């Protein structure tokens, strides 16, 4: 099995592991891109191919296919933000977000969905953002699909996803076969730990190699600390290496100077860098309105083995409840991959109760419901703050409105799981038990306390914090990602989204990045 990254490095791609640097150093390029995920990776390829010199910065390390181990105990500390231990300020919601070259695209579950039309309509109405007609993202969805081999998954869904499909069929609920960005996928089920076969068309194996091939420099294990700026110009970026646990070091100082800076650190780290830099913030929205698609979980026991760890982790979703007629919080139904650490840590309880459920591991089917936040006055998201170490922490209040949505989601998941043939269903909530019929579950769920720490909550999608808006008073950047106050700064990542999406974000981010990097390239070539 070849490793295209190791092969490229052997033939001279420019990569610096900042953790090996022992002296202060200054770097210069036309453009410095901070972050190598969906936004940064896509931008790097487009700008290098436009003939611009590019430096890519990444806080994580340069791991590639021959490094990836199909073990969570290796993958989580090395490939995820905060060792996959990232949580909201009150520790109520666990946040899975990538931190490695390729960002979350290296560890995501490959689900590729175009921005839903109602979301675009909402952006137009609320933020004056027009992505219709000539401004349509459709050509960019098509380009991204071509570049990243995005197509409908032709292989039958694994039993975990098949249960979702079967439940929908039996209830007459809507479902969709998922499009995935894979090429030569062996249907293993280990997308979340880095693809060992280079089948997932993440930034790590597509745009970043292309940028490196075209002469870009990649600096890994570096933490961007602060922009130095004056008036409407960024003068330089101050950065430091990180240690073997990815913690910023203060021993060596690195300076990056560029004509233009592209911020692509994701919806928590990008606002944090701007907050540390105390950049102008007249709209008051910097770091605010951060959305999570907060998700509740429901487990079900089936007579036949489900083995949710094997096979494409996500191949079916249901939008039956994502756009309700009333103003209640909509939710999308999906399934997660079921691996031992993810399951053991999310499953409630301890001792014999927990051990007993773990012994039924292969018979456990798991559903998640992702709430669509950001579309209602009572779901205005969270706020990125800085802790005493200057690191970001997301304060995300859970409102009654969201809790009501979560209760509806528990009900929908249990109904679906029974309709799919489950013998028993257990909402993942401290006060829930295994219920053996839909009637029993329905009554019990109605009585579950809707409280922080009682419900197991998770997020794999972080959005907002540097939101785009047609109106400078309501946003941090414009529709092209250009910062409203700093002329040589663009933000191209999930932080620009002015609401959650109601869909998994990667394809929206690829399309937006392609569009805005094209515009930036034209502007810089002038």
């Amino acid at each position, binding site marked *: 099995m070849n490793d295209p990254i190791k092969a490229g490095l052997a033939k001279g791609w420019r990569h610096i592991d900042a953790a090996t640097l022992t002296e202060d150093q200054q770097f210069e390029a036309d453009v410095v891109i901070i972050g190598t995920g969906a936004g940064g990776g896509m931008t790097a390829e487009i700008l290098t191919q436009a003939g611009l010199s590019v430096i890519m910065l990444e806080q994580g390390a340069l791991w590639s296919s021959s490094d990836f181990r199909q073990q969570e105990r290796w993958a989580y500390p090395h490939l995820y933000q905060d060792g996959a231990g*990232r949580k909201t300020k009150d520790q109520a919601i666990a946040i899975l977000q990538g931190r490695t070259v390729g960002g979350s695209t290296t560890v995501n579950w490959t689900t590729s969905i175009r921005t839903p039309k109602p979301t675009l309509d909402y952006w137009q109405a609320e933020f004056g953002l027009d992505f219709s007609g000539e401004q349509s993202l459709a050509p960019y969805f098509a380009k991204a699909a071509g570049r990243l081999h995005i197509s409908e998954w032709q292989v039958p869904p694994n039993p975990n996803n098949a249960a979702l499909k079967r439940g929908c069929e039996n209830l007459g609920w809507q479902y969709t076969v998922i499009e995935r960005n894979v090429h030569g996928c062996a249907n293993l089920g280990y997308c979340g730990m880095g693809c060992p076969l280079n089948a997932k068309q993440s930034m790590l194996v597509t745009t970043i190699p292309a940028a490196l091939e075209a002469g870009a420099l990649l600096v890994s294990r570096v933490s961007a600390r602060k922009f130095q700026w004056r008036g409407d110009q960024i003068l330089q970026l101050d950065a430091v290496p990180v240690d073997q646990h*990815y913690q910023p070091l203060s021993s060596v100082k690195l300076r990056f100077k560029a004509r233009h800076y592209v911020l692509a650190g994701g919806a928590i780290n990008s606002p944090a860098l701007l907050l540390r830099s105390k950049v102008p913030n007249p709209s008051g929205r910097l770091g605010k309105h951060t959305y999570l698609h907060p998700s509740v979980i429901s487990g079900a026991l089936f007579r036949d083995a489900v083995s949710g760890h094997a096979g494409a982790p996500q191949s079916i979703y249901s939008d039956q409840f994502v756009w309700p007629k009333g103003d209640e919080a909509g939710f999308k139904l999906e399934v997660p991959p079921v691996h031992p650490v993810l399951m053991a840590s999310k499953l409630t309880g301890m001792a014999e109760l*927990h051990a*007993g459920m773990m012994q039924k591991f292969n018979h456990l089917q798991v559903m998640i419901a992702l709430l669509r936040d950001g579309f209602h006055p009572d779901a205005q998201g969270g706020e990125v703050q800085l802790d005493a170490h200057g690191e970001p922490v997301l304060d995300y209040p859970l409102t009654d409105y969201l809790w009501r949505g979560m209760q509806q989601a528990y009900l929908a998941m249990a109904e679906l799981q029974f309709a799919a043939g489950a013998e028993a269903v257990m909402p993942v909530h401290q006060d829930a038990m295994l219920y053996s019929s839909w009637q029993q579950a329905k009554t019990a769920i109605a009585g579950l306390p809707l409280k922080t720490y009682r419900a197991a909550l998770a997020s794999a999608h972080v959005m907002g914090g540097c939101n785009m808006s047609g109106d400078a008073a309501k946003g941090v950047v414009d529709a092209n990602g250009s910062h409203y106050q700093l002329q040589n700064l663009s933000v191209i990542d999930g932080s620009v989204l002015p609401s959650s999406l109601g869909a998994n974000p990667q394809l929206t981010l690829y399309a937006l990045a392609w569009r805005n990097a094209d515009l930036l390239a034209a502007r810089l070539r002038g």
Partner: protein
Amino acid sequence: MQRRQFIMLGLAAGATLATGLTLYPMFSEADKTQQQQDASLVLDALLPAILLGALPKGEAEHQEALQNTRQAVLDYLPFLPKRQQAELQQLFFLLSQQLTRLALTGHLLALGELSLEQRLQLLSSWRDSYLTLLQQAYNGLRELLLAAYYGQPAHWQALAYTAPEFRAYE
């Protein structure tokens, strides 16, 4: 939580806030050793309780699983943000000191001297406490310890789970 315990917790929290910074100046080597000892003490007491029913039956395997899991937790902690590390260290410290432990647990005995049943009752009381701090402690420790245990391939047999290996091509 009973009223007496709540008052004691207030005292303990006050004492920690007043002295916490001087107790843990800034991660010197001596502090790190002390912190590891505090953490190990708490982990060694809680692991056999939380993992009851999961741990291997044979005495030697049982001990090995406990030691490896304690080590897995200690190896993982440095990957957490410094803020979270400090919060956990604070908890380990409070549980290792007699006065504050009394407040948090309602027992004068060290955690390791309580019966497994008492340790589980203690964890349940945190889970159901109306104090955010204790609910966070329950959730945080529970996740940390269970993740460390089930991260080890040696413990996958009970799950009938195996992971593919692709490292042969190196």
